[in-house]
């Protein structure tokens, strides 16, 4: 306790308001080295065999990086080769303030036992704490603290037995710091110097981020961009109103154009247009920038041109041209506020996936990297592996964008695999959609029970229930194993009215494991009359009543075709596409799952009115129904949108003779009008209604194995029934709310990734199948294209009537219909067309499904039906 220790008390002051904080210095902070016998640590982190083979230092050594080295060279530090690193508290604190992503990464590294990274709390160690001196900047003070700690380690470990050869190496790219360190007798190297000296791993050099010194060497020295304003002037400018702050969003189609979203007070936000390379001034998509509005006479309208950065040009030559924006619409009415970027408030760089465009000069080590995301500029990287990396998807991080450089500078992070491969492309789409998919860390796995694992034989009281627990049916449970579950048990009468609801932790003794199809067969087979089948029929009857009740209340049954791939059992490549077929048993299970979710939602809300995690689905504003309205009108069908019930009823009535698919199409369109359902914390919101399910309250409970929201709901429910205890975070509504925001973000990104994945598999399918001719329906009509849905595959594709290499036929677009007249043929919504589908792989990074019209025949526009290629080679893809 306190008295046994001698504390020296220091205070530090800062800010405008004087803040006095105590700062205790301790002598019980240990060095963490295996060599040391003096420190009383329980376990050590730094090894005796701390040998990384290096030309600079052949003996064992511990590395101490300074803040900038960790900040910029985190890719290097994460490499398995780099071990036995001392991360000082000073460094960690600085990183925490400067970059949240790097902070998270370095903490992950520290938690990985195999990396042997040790955090030394130097600021609270009696012998390594230093006070800031008169006239010393905070940075200089921290540099000195780092040197002091390095020196302490050298001295401290000198006393340890067998540690004579051990060296402490300080890594810093700061010349002054390095020099001072050397003056104190420390071994200090620049990060590159050290990494280049490593004997075993020459490829590590590629991952070095360029330091500012090197950047100057590369560039011509000619200034291409205006200087960014320093942060102090930006802050003053924003305060006085002369500058605006916003999020920079690059255009996907035109690399010389971007918009900045400026969030105003409350809901309103303005969008400012930025055109031309100099005005874009090195901002990258998603950066937070400071910008200045141009005078009104310089305002412009968005250009309609698709303009891709065509790649390596000599710096500076074309720059004049790139500052003039071509293809501006002359229409004055379309003028938008226009501005220029004057400074960067916060960079939002992440590692980008893409491909290397190899330099034309042989043996060159500098190459341009083309990111998969078109909104990201090309990045200049230095690598010696260009030949190996050609045709591969790689990851690159941006290091900086100096004002003399046409492109930002970056470094190679890792290779993902051959472009076009299913595994590689899946990895790319997961990375690009920010879907975390790395293996669970040691820390997480340590919480799992040890295997083999069995239910401890507490008294398992058998409960025979007519109403099976619904989750018993969802999972395909194998045989008669006992499974732990969390059950929601209802007592219902013949009319499916709930008499009593009970929640309990349970052990399921599964009587049978049935797939949806098997269960369906039992229900339908009148010869089967065993207990299981009978109870299935009973459940099915109840489910039908429940569904009817739900629909009466106005629940929507909307369809959107879900695509299923039949995989080749050997190659795991898709061999056939099919839309998912739904059976009665699917609906049965769904009904009980919905009921469980609703019951649980009510229960946790009753118990935790402030912090229940719920899910709501807002009613869409009427304007959302525009497309649906027009579509229905075009076929003389009336769809009412006043309420969910009216909509559901009118959708049911919307039938056209001889066009059975019409109703499905209409429902697909209705789905597109809907709002996104979201998770929220009950204490932070007042509107709980779930529009689609017509339920006053709803949550996600039934799928804890694949959704995190369900896990939280399980925890809340466990507390509510007294089966578990809470932790403070669980009941903090602000933390709950932050979690909901994150869940919603992840959910959105996962949906995008899912769509991208379906697209990828569809592409792989068409790559192996060659050209296909199929029938489809027009789902949307655009100014220059129609969007066609192929029911057989649930596949949506665009038929463009404009293309670069063909003369555009006369197009007339009528917004009212909407209709599009091409030559003399007019396309209406829901028209039946025949298209030929093929894969366009002209751009390896952006392969797409291409559709062309076969029927109706329009001279000069439609194509002749190509010969169906016989299914030739097995689906093996070569980039």
């Amino acid at each position: 306790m306190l008295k046994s220790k001698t504390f020296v008390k220091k205070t530090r002051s800062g800010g405008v308001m004087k803040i006095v904080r105590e700062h205790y210095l301790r002598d019980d902070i240990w060095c963490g080295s295996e060599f040391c016998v003096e420190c009383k640590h329980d376990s050590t982190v730094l090894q005796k065999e701390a040998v990384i083979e290096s030309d600079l230092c052949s003996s064992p050594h511990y590395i101490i990086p300074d803040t900038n080295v960790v900040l910029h060279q985190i890719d290097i530090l994460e490499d398995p080769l780099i071990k036995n690193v001392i991360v000082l508290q000073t460094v960690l604190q600085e990183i925490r303030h400067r970059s949240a992503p790097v902070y998270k990464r370095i903490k992950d590294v520290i938690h990985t036992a195999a990396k042997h990274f040790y955090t030394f709390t130097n600021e609270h160690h009696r012998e390594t704490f230093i006070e800031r001196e008169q006239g010393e900047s905070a940075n200089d003070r921290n540099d000195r603290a780092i040197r002091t700690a390095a020196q302490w380690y050298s001295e401290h470990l000198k006393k340890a037995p067998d540690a004579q050869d051990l060296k402490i190496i300080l890594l810093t790219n700061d010349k002054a710091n390095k020099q001072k360190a050397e003056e104190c007798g420390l071994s200090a190297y620049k990060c590159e110097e050290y990494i280049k000296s490593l004997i075993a791993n020459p490829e590590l050099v590629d991952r070095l981020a360029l330091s500012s010194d090197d950047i100057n060497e590369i560039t011509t020295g000619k200034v291409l961009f205006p200087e960014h304003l320093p942060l102090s002037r930006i802050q003053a400018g924003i305060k006085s109103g002369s500058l605006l702050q916003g999020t920079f969003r690059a255009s996907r189609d035109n690399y010389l154009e971007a918009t900045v979203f400026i969030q105003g007070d409350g809901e309103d936000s303005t969008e400012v247009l930025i055109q031309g390379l100099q005005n874009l001034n090195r901002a990258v998509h998603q950066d937070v920038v400071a910008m200045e509005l141009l005078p009104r006479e310089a305002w412009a309208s968005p250009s309609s041109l698709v303009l891709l950065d065509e790649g390596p040009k000599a710096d500076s030559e074309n720059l004049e041209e790139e500052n003039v924006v071509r293809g501006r619409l002359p229409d004055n009415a379309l003028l938008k506020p226009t501005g220029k970027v004057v400074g960067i408030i916060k960079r939002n760089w992440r590692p980008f996936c893409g491909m290397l465009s190899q330099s034309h000069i042989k043996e060159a080590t500098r190459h341009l990297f083309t990111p998969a995301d078109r909104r990201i500029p090309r990045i200049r990287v230095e690598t010696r592996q260009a030949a190996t990396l050609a045709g591969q998807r790689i990851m690159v991080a941006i290091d900086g964008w100096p004002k003399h450089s046409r492109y930002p500078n970056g470094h190679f992070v890792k290779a993902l695999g051959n472009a076009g491969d299913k595994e590689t492309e899946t990895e790319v789409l997961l990375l690009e959609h920010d879907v975390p998919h790395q293996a669970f860390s040691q820390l997480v796995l340590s919480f799992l029970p040890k295997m083999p694992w069995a239910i401890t034989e507490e008294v398992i009281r058998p409960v025979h229930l007519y109403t099976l627990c619904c989750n018993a049916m969802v999972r395909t449970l194998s045989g008669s194993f006992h499974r732990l579950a969390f059950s929601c048990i209802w007592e219902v009468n013949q009319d499916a009215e709930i008499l009593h609801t009970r929640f309990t932790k349970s052990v399921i003794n599964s009587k049978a494991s049935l797939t949806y199809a098997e269960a369906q067969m039992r229900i339908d087979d009148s010869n089967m009359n065993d207990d299981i089948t009978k109870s299935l029929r009973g459940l099915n009857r109840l489910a039908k009543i429940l569904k009817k009740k739900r629909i009466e209340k106005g629940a929507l049954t909307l369809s959107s075709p879900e695509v299923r791939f039949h995989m080749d059992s050997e190659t795991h490549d898709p061999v056939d596409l099919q839309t998912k077929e739904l059976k009665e048993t699917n609906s049965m299970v769904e009904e009980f799952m919905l009921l469980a979710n609703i019951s649980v939602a009510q229960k946790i809300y009753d118990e935790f009115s402030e912090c229940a995690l719920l899910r709501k689905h807002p009613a869409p504003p009427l304007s959302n129904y525009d497309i649906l309205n027009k579509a229905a009108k075009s076929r003389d069908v009336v769809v009412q949108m006043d309420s969910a019930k009216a909509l559901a009823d009118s959708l049911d009535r919307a039938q056209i003779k001889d066009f059975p698919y019409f109703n499905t199409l209409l429902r697909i369109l209705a789905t597109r009008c809907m709002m996104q359902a979201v998770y929220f914390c009950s204490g932070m919101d007042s509107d709980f209604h779930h529009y689609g399910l017509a339920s006053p309250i709803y949550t996600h409970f039934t799928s804890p194995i694949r959704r995190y929201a369900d896990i939280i709901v399980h925890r809340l429910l466990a507390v509510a029934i007294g089966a578990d205890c809470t932790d403070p975070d669980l009941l903090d509504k602000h933390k709950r709310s932050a979690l909901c925001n994150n869940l919603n973000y992840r959910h959105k990104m996962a949906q995008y990734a899912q769509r991208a994945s379906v697209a990828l598999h569809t592409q792989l399918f068409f790559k192996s199948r060659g050209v296909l001719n199929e029938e489809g329906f027009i789902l949307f009509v655009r100014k220059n294209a129609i969007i066609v849905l192929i029911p057989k595959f649930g596949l949506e594709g665009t038929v463009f009537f404009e293309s670069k290499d063909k003369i555009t036929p006369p197009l007339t677009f009528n917004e009212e219909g909407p209709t599009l007249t091409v030559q003399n043929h007019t396309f209406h919504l829901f028209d039946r067309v025949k298209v030929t589908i093929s894969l366009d792989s002209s751009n390896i990074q952006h392969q797409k499904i291409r559709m062309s019209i076969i029927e109706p025949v329009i001279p000069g526009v439609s194509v002749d039906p190509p010969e169906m290629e016989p299914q030739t080679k097995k689906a093996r893809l070569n980039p």
Partner: protein
Amino acid sequence: MAGLELLSDQGYRLDGRKPSELRKVQARMGVFTQADGSAYIEQGNTKALAVVYGPHEVRGSRSKALHDRAVINCQYSMATFSTAERKRRPHGDRKSSEMSLHLKQTFEAAVLTSLYPRSQIDIFVKILQSDGGNYSACVNAATLAVIDAGIPMRDYVCACSAGFVENTAVVDLCHAEESGGGTVMSLALLPRGGQVALVQMDARLHQDHLDALMEAAMTACRSLGQVLDGVVRQHLQEVSVLTAE
């Protein structure tokens, strides 16, 4: 940007303490000679002064007097210069009256009031500098002042605060930790018998965690009790040396 990291992965708090460690305590008794008892305490950067008058006749309205025990009158105030922002603090604002009431309840539980029926004991405490744990510092200072006044108590009353940071119970919170968002508990304990004189919380806490938090606070109170005991013994020694001369 990022807020303060209240507890590092290595288990150190902002100021370098471990979760169960107290701040440095320094105290002196008998700082004023005119009062019957007085004491000054520093717990880290929180500094409090306590003065005790009595027991004496009940002042003001006689009806306040109790026939079987003494009335304890507490007054709490904060010096205008006690926080980083200088504020005029009128007497009797809601926070001060609440604090006065808490102190009254605490000392009614500890002082052997039945020895002094129909009389009154005044306890005045002032926070000179505030850095979290004001209530605790007041209680601890007042305990010393009451002892200095020679008024018998069942035991020392020791108070300490505790709260949760990252699911770890931390004790004797400084201002930055108190404003970190979690629930803060203040607990006053008679350490020898383990009786709790007062528990106070300003936000909700699930009862599952109450025990852990109380346990942490009680352990802290016990170690504070030892510190206070040391202060009293030291004081007695000094006084007896003086009187012996």
